[in-house]
């Protein structure tokens, strides 16, 4: 049932092995086995985040919170200093009997700028951590893989992994009872 190895071009090398599963339970248990086998460069692909998968894969906690916290501090300080410079130093306007720079009177601005920069940190930080956008990836060579955004589940083990061996890894994956396994290749540059 394994797919024929594509042999279109000579200058190709294995990129990853892709195994297909049909249910969240199957893919979750398979993922536990892959982790136990000691692979490092591997991944699970699902149409939606599967509950408990991070634990099954043994992923460390996301670092995103630190990026956001840094951006929040930058946002707060920049709003405060913007107000201080513009209304306190460069062009002091006395309004409502309050001095040019009266800290409580511009709290909404501090808040909004803090949130704005934190949100930028969240979204662009997430893209950065995920290495996205990346439109070209060997995994997209698979026709079956289109179903990952519908109702199928996949495990991929990359050729870059130190434990990777085309035959051995394929044998290992077969023991996990996937419904399908294929080898995907990439051009050698």
């Amino acid at each position, binding site marked *: 049932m394994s797919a024929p190895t594509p042999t279109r071009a000579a200058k190709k090398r294995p990129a990853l092995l892709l195994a297909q599963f049909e249910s969240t339970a199957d893919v979750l248990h398979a993922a536990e086995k892959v982790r136990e086998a000691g692979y490092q460069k591997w991944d699970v692909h699902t149409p939606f985040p599967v*509950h408990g998968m991070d634990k099954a894969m043994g992923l460390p906690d996301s670092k995103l*919170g630190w990026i956001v916290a840094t951006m929040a501090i930058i946002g707060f300080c920049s709003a405060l200093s913007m107000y201080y410079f513009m209304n306190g130093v460069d062009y002091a306007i006395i309004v*409502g*009997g309050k001095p040019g720079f009266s800290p*409580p*009177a511009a*709290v909404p601005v501090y808040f909004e700028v803090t949130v704005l920069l934190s949100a930028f940190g969240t979204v662009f930080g997430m893209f950065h951590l995920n290495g996205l956008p990346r439109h070209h990836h060997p995994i997209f060579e698979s026709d079956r893989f289109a179903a990952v955004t519908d109702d199928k589940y996949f495990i991929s083990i990359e050729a870059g992994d130190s434990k990777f061996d085309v035959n051995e890894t394929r044998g290992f994956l077969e023991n996990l009872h996937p419904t399908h396994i294929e080898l995907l290749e990439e051009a050698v540059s």
Partner: protein
Amino acid sequence: MASTHEHTVSEIRLPEGSAWHKAWQYFLAVGAVGLAGSAFGYHSDPKRFGFAWVFALTTVLMIGLGSLFFVVVQHVVGAYWSVTVRRIAEMVMSGLPSIVVLVIPLLVVAPRVYSWMGEHGEHGEHAAAATHTEHGGTAHDHGGTAHDHGGAAHDHADVSSPVALAHAEHEAEEALEAGIVDGKKAYLNKGGFYGRAAGYVAVWSVLALLYMRWSIKQDEDGDLAHTNAARSLAPIALILFGLTLTFAGIDWLMSLDPLWYSTIFGVYLFAMGMVSFFATLILLITGLRASGILVKEISVEHLHDVGKFQFGFLSFWAYIAFSQFFLIYYASIPEEVTFFHKRWTLDPGADHAWAKVTVVLIALHFIVPFIFMMSRNIKRNTSLLPVGAVLLLATHVIEVYWIVLPNFGDLSPALVDVSALLACVGIFFGVGLKSLTVHSLIAAKDPRIERALSFEQV
């Protein structure tokens, strides 16, 4: 027929010999000591005692009302994660009927504390004077009254003397204020005050008893009808809760200064109640867990959620408290700004003590706990989370003190404050924690308990 649900969870009782069996007795003992001190305080200075009692009563009342709201809301939304902590919240809530007793000293000393009651306050005397002029209810009309008084002063005093002029001005202002207070008579009157107080206390006690009863009954028979009854009453309970909290706040706290008003005050008290309740809940849970009780049933996952609520309501409280401050500060209208002026006067020669308390509140009730409790790791840490809770409870006490006592005068902490606080806290928790010893510590037959026990953060 009564529908039931398959049960796999068994009740949890306090283990034999646990110190928690005696917790309620310790609390009652503390309450008794506090009562003795309060009685002495009442004897030596009834007015000062009155302010101390308003402060102490409000402090525990907010915690109790927070627990009532929490329990009712869990029924409205049908939450399942909270079922394991709900019984502990209900135990705090079951202290609410003690307010029936705790409110009595307030009712006794009210005429000395609330100047508008017209017995021992300046406003009262002038209000009485102003009534003689038989003017209608508006402040505008009473501007006229003030004029008359000014005129009266004019007749008696030497115009050229600045002292006399200042005196006349002062008198005119007082008369004006008395007129305004007099215009509120339709609401601020003795009969209304006592009648409403009876109503508030009745509503709180009945709701607390009902919700506790349904929960306990379900422990016995596992009947789902109790869940449905609790849910059906919940919307009405919330409406009653909102109205009683708001108007009790106006009667007991806002009218300490009968000239001052703020539409957001009820929401502010609500936020305060939720913050102090969650702090109490965290302390109780972590305390029980520290003695090896409920360690499995109330897991870190549940604690994390309680911590999130604590943080969320802390932010909400900050939002509401800041909105109230900000709008009053920004517009700076004399009749409103008095509230913050009393608590933030930096005039040379004035006593700056209240301003220092304000700074302490901003720093320790908001900035420090906000930053401290933001992290997910703190909320999941059973020894650090209660540190934040202790801080928030301590600053809750300071905050209520800061709301009540500036109406008495300069900052002057006294033994009677401590006595009153001990009395109220002791009696309230003495009554509430008695239920620890008689009931199961989790609602074992709640239909959602299994899900609650296996709950994990996503």
